[in-house]
């Protein structure tokens, strides 16, 4: 371990930006800022291209060189939603929404009490329990797929959205337990005790002390669980068919090229990604914490 990390408690967050050290050579600093802009732009170009192409007509979308300034149209979105193609993505979008939202709610119902028993009133060996949860998230889903498939076949749950809900709950539970624990750990236990001694009611304590700390955490946790469920393909593809198909499963219909369909593909990719983009930007500040299972703040 390095000497730096040993230096006592460090502030969890950096002090306001004004305190950063000034770059000594302003010109080099400007160049580095420009480089950051350039790289950021390069990374976002494919997404911008996707949105732009989705707004072109199929003829303009498939030109070489690209027709960047071609007139905009909603034809791509109309064909994705079935105008002239007869396609109907709504059932799969609704299935995705059902699976993601319900599994997220169940995850919270299970994870919040568990996180409470791992932080505020911890059970013995609570760290072992934490690492057990974490290890279940690290095992590859594909290795448990066959028994799950056989069970679904046997119980008649194939192509049933509730099976996906149960599996997505199990998939996200470890992340939620870790995240919620790290938020609950910030609740000052002394204040809880003092409040109860002063005779403050449980509801008052919850509202004044616990809620302000924990509610943002619950919001971030749900957004991240929602994203992971919405994105999932392998389980959805293996265990659902026509009835319970989810949006990523619907997208696999675009894997093989079908003539002029680029604008429609881009519209489809954008529509399906939109909920994740919204949830992700909303959870931006807590994204790292969720993705690193609460290990990084």
């Amino acid at each position, binding site marked *: 371990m*390095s000497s*730096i990390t040993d230096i006592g408690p*460090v502030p969890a967050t950096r002090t306001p930006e004004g305190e950063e*050290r000034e*770059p000594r050579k302003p010109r080099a600093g400007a160049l580095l800022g420009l480089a*950051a802009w350039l790289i*950021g732009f390069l*990374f*976002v170009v494919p*997404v911008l*291209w996707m949105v732009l*192409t989705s707004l072109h007509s199929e003829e303009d*979308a498939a*030109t*070489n060189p*690209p027709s960047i300034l071609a007139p905009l149209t909603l034809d791509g979105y109309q064909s994705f939603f079935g105008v002239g193609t007869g396609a109907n993505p709504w059932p799969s979008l609704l299935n995705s929404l059902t699976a993601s939202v319900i599994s997220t709610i169940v995850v919270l119902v*299970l994870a919040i*009490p*568990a996180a409470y*028993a791992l932080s505020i009133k911890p*059970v*013995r060996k609570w*760290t072992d329990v934490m690492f*057990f*949860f*974490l*290890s*279940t998230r*690290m*095992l*590859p*889903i*594909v*290795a*448990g*797929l*066959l*028994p799950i498939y*056989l*069970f679904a076949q046997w119980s008649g749950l194939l192509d049933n959205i509730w099976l996906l809900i149960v*599996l997505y709950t*199990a998939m996200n539970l470890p992340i939620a337990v870790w995240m919620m624990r790290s938020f609950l*750990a910030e609740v000052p236990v002394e204040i809880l005790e003092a409040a109860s001694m002063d005779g403050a009611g449980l509801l008052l304590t919850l509202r004044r002390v616990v809620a302000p700390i924990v509610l943002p955490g619950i919001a971030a946790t749900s957004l991240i669980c929602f994203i992971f469920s919405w994105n999932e393909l*392998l389980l959805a593809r293996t265990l659902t068919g026509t009835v319970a198909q989810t949006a990523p499963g619907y997208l*696999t219909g675009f*894997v093989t090229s079908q003539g002029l369909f*680029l604008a429609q*593909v*881009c519209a489809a*990719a954008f529509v*399906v990604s939109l909920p*994740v983009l919204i949830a*992700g930007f909303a959870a*931006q500040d807590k994204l*790292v914490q969720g*993705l*690193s*299972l609460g*290990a*990084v703040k």
Partner: protein
Amino acid sequence: MSTTLEAGRGRGQQPPTPPPPPSPPAGGALRRSADWARRAPLLPALVFTIIVTQLPFVVTLIVSFMDWNAYYPDERGFAGLRNYASVLTDVNMRRAILVTVVLTAVVVLVSLLLGMGIALLLDRKFRGRGVVRTMMITPFLIVPVAAALLWKHALFNPEYGLLNGMLTTVWRLFGSDSPPQPDWITAAPLVSVEVALIWQWTPFMMLILLAGLQSRPLDVIEAAHIDGATNWQIFRYMTFPHLRRYLELGGLLGSIYIVQNFDAVFTITSGGLGTANLPYVIYQTFYQAHDYGRASAAGVVVVIGTIAIATFALRTVSTLFQEENAR
């Protein structure tokens, strides 16, 4: 899970343990009921997780020692190690193991390096830093199948993809009518999958490393500056050692997710052109060939590989975890 227990015990010092549950002098029944009151909120989540995630693995382990093909239901029986022998000697399976290792290593290393460079750039103050950070996160917020479709059809396509379109534009600028128009996916199938994945995972690494950079104690770095340390010295002896565990964490978590990757391989090449990785081959063996025994043996191989990585990952997480709790 044995890994859990090992990782849990092998952690060196225990993190600062919370005060032990109060043990009433009466002990015995009273204390036991207090213990259960503590455990009660934990149990639903724990039981649910054990049933849904551990039970299937036990079944996979059992099936991996069986002859079981859904096409020949009468020939079910004990196979001993035959499935493992066929997994480890079959050309396709060995190829899949190799592809999985190469894919994971390349994607993780390149996105870690890129992520670190970008995190260092974003750690500085400049105009529009928040905008650039948001732009950088965007690729990670595209649904993986959608991202793979985007790369396959809108960027790599040899006739109307953006890459070849830009080559045409640039060549025309210089008055040439015969720009190179490579068929990217056919020419370099694995690299195409890797590029698409690196694009999605660099933001993940960047976020973790940026969080690491921003948790540096700034006063110490300031002091080093005043003492005349150069930027390189500060990076080499202060920033890098501090970042090391964040690099490990990003690399290990990234490995765990990318070893399991199915979406990109399935979408971009459909497992063709020598890009089938283990998850894809397992999916194929059981979903299309219905060879349950072999698919399970391959699944166990993936689990063993993952446990090897996960043991390190758990150790790294627990180091960070302890520091977090020590604050």
